[in-house]
């Protein structure tokens, strides 16, 4: 599949307006999936325009509260929730997550009863929230179905969740947006039950960050979350979300630079995370990966024993290794043991992540080309272990 972008003679805002009208024309129920970030604020305001044009009443908004939400974002969400043109459903569901500290990952259930009883929830569940108990679920176990299965309950007919996903956020997001040629921005959510009438509509997929802020402030005169001004002063990341998973925690310094009080709340609940902030910049990641690489596939098992804590993550890691091993047998050059250990160490182990080969011209590939002797020697001696 080769794709390229065809630029149109209209700007991205006009195009997004056309797309969102099409979504409202096509689906029986349309909701905005809101996170408190700039992108979901922009799609919320686009939806507001349609509701005003068509006199549809308040915009239906879904907020999936992931517990570790910063005070500034929460303050902004509360501001949005109390707008008369917003009808927000606020979900606090026991999703599985992880705390990643210097490569060691530990399973964690958001809003878990056990942590609540121990006084170690980052915050209490808001009284108006829809919780696991409303679905007859036990908050000590992660959700048995994908979260979208729960948030679309009670919606009638065909359902579209409008999200603020943009292609420029990452190459994965870009690729997901160029797969389809017709209605490329309307996609089926990953891992949802067959026959579930839910689609995601990514109507601002071709916007840049500056487009988002211009639209919010100049077209709507609306405020955005104060976090972004603090991020601007401190050169911090402008993406908001759970700060302790394997990718986000490597920028935990951004939390300290923007909201140190939030860091303290996280520390109160997960005190071992402090080591990440103090020692990540000096941790010799490469030597750790090499150490386990030299042991071949038994190194992968050893790595799981040493670095992955908790049954669900361990199970996921073992199944990842098993899948990787099959691919390695068929194509050892593309699926190297170094890359396996690197993935176990550094990358997300979410269910949606499959083992991927090392392509040419990638950083990993170049590194291996430059420094291949030691690793190749080790692998030749250990293949099939």
């Amino acid at each position, binding site marked *: 599949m*080769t*794709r*390229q*972008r*065809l*630029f*149109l*003679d*209209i*700007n*991205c*805002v*006009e*195009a*997004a307006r056309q797309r969102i009208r099409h979504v409202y024309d096509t689906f029986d129920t349309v909701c905005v999936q809101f996170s408190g970030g700039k992108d979901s604020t922009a799609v919320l305001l686009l939806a507001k325009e349609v509701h005003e044009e068509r006199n549809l009443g308040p915009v239906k908004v879904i907020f999936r509260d992931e517990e570790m939400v910063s005070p500034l974002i929460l303050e902004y969400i509360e501001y949005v929730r109390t707008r008369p043109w917003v009808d927000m459903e606020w979900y606090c569901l026991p999703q599985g997550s992880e705390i990643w500290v210097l490569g060691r990952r530990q399973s964690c259930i958001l809003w878990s009863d056990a942590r609540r009883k121990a006084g170690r929830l980052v915050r209490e569940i808001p009284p108006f929230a829809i919780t696991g108990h409303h679905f007859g679920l036990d908050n000590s176990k992660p959700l048995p179905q994908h979260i979208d299965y729960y948030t679309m309950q009670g919606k009638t007919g065909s359902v579209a969740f409008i999200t603020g996903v943009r*292609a*420029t*956020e*990452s*190459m994965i997001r*870009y690729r997901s*947006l160029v*797969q*389809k*040629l017709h209605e*490329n921005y309307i996609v089926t959510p990953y891992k949802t039950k067959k026959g579930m009438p839910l689609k995601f509509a990514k109507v601002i997929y*071709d*916007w*840049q*960050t*500056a*487009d988002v*802020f*211009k*639209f919010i*402030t*100049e077209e709507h005169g609306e405020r*955005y979350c104060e976090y*972004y*001004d*603090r*991020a*601007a*002063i*401190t*050169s*911090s*990341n*402008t*993406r908001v979300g759970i700060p302790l998973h394997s990718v986000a925690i*490597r*920028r*935990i310094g*951004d939390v*300290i*630079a*923007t909201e*140190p009080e939030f860091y303290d709340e996280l520390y109160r609940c997960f005190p071992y995370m402090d080591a990440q902030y103090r020692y*990540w*910049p000096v941790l010799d990641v490469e030597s750790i990966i090499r150490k386990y690489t030299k042991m071949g596939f038994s190194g992968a098992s050893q790595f799981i024993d040493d670095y992955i804590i908790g049954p669900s993550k361990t199970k996921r890691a073992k199944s990842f290794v098993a899948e990787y091993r099959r691919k390695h047998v068929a194509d050892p050059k593309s699926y190297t043991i170094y890359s396996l250990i690197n993935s176990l160490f550094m990358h997300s182990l979410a269910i949606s992540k499959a083992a991927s080969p090392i392509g040419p011209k990638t950083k990993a590939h170049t590194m291996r080309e430059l420094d291949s002797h030691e690793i190749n020697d080790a692998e030749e001696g250990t293949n099939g272990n």
Partner: protein
Amino acid sequence: MEISYVSVDLLKKGDWHSNYILRPDLLTLSVSLRENGFIYPILVRKEDNSIIDGYHRWMLVKDNEHFQKQFPQVPCVFKSCDSLEAAMMHLQINRGRGTLVAHLISRIIKDFIYSKKYTEEQIQALLSMKYDELQLLMDGTIIKKLNIQNHKYSRAWVPIEAPAGTVDKFETERPPNSDR
């Protein structure tokens, strides 16, 4: 607390010293020392005159002739302890120092300017701050940083099939600094 005044030559660096001050921050410390002198004493291990806390102020005086004239003797508090206890104190003091928060500094900088107590030039000199940093702290909004007023909306696009080998030079937005 008994404060003694001693020559810098009597003191020495502790083996436990594990704190590093970056050059711009050291410059600020130097300005503060010049303007305000020693506001609090250096903490020294009595047994061997090793510095537990205050190494950088001591180093500034020791390495600078002007400071040596300004401070022929420096204020010290001597503490009797073994070297491991001294190391523990050193770590406790340094880990407990806290960190400056940019948006709160920004508020103070605005107060400085509005009160006319300090000019922009004085703030830059006293805090070893460059012009860009000062401007950022004085008006640090994402709207200004992205120059939203002059921004023109991007053109919309749709994906199309392309011949094999076509490269679409697509660039993602990266965070403004690396992992931290």
